[in-house]
């Protein structure tokens, strides 16, 4: 796509929009996992992990990505910030 199309008033061209939507939908198609089921998987992950460690439930991100041939499920799970216990006597 030419530079002209990408620059026109900062708005993406319909072809760019098409490409981005396709990339997203194909990631889900290829994994056989719909956005809904990915959301369910995220909730279950949060449940399981919370049993072992305190996490910041609202900041959890679970997504599918791909680079050429490799599909990847990426989970970013921040822990709840806690005051450091290091050095405290048990």
């Amino acid at each position, binding site marked *: *796509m030419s530079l002209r199309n990408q620059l026109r008033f900062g708005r993406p061209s319909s072809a760019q929009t098409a490409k981005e939507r*396709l990339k997203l939908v194909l990631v889900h198609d290829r994994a056989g996992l719909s956005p809904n089921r990915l959301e369910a998987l995220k909730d279950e992950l949060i449940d399981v992990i919370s049993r072992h460690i305190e996490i910041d439930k609202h900041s959890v991100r679970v997504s599918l990505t791909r680079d050429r041939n490799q599909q990847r499920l990426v989970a970013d799970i921040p822990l709840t910030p806690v005051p450091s216990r290091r050095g405290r006597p048990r």
Partner: protein
Amino acid sequence: MSGKVATITSGKGGVGKTTATANLGAALANMGLRVVCIDADIGLRNLDVVMGLENRIVYDLVDVVEGRCKLRQAMIRDKRLEEFYLIPAAQTRDKTAVSPQDMIRLSDELRADFDWILIDSPAGIERGFRNAIAPADIVVIITNPEVSAVRDADRIIGLVEAEDKGPGKLIINRVKPEMIKRGDMLGTDDVLDVLAIDLVGVVPDDESVIVAANKGLAVVLDPRSKAGGAFRNIARRLNGEDVPFEALDEHDGFFGRLSRLVKTGGEG
């Protein structure tokens, strides 16, 4: 020497499988090769009308498979090209009348007498599709630069790989260079970036394709047709020739050439 089997498939219907099969077949035959096209879309036969042979059908694919006629009896010779034949689909049966093994057996029989066996696959991903790709040495996937067609092409590419028939080769059909320039149509690079597959050709949207099909003629035999030229180049690439990819707006007639001349003049 044994012929090659190429299956033309798409997933989505209406993207140009039948047109591509008829024209790649005609182009290969016009290069002096022996070609037979098989319409594997049982119940919805179309290749016969596109090739202009609908009035000559006596036997069909299912008759051959079920032993009611000899293979040669079901083959209809093209009106213009010497070594170009069609095996039509049955119109009154469904896809279960033929099995993938039947298609392999039939194709193997044809390999001895032909350089190319082209199979026009039905739309969809079910039995008919599996029948069509079972004997394939090469799977040609055809798509249009539209979200629905590209999505289905991706699904087909996955299935073709799962059946160990990959990697497929892609044709992007009905491309409108003007829309790509405006940013309103996915370009070749965009489609290839999304699908990650080898390209075998890009065919411009061209009214002459419909005009030729109206008459039951192959558009590749029309030397002035842009789409015809693109299909001729694809046929040569499939046959192993190294043909450079044509720039889409290279053949846009007098005004296109004039405007480019003016542009280059302005920049230089």
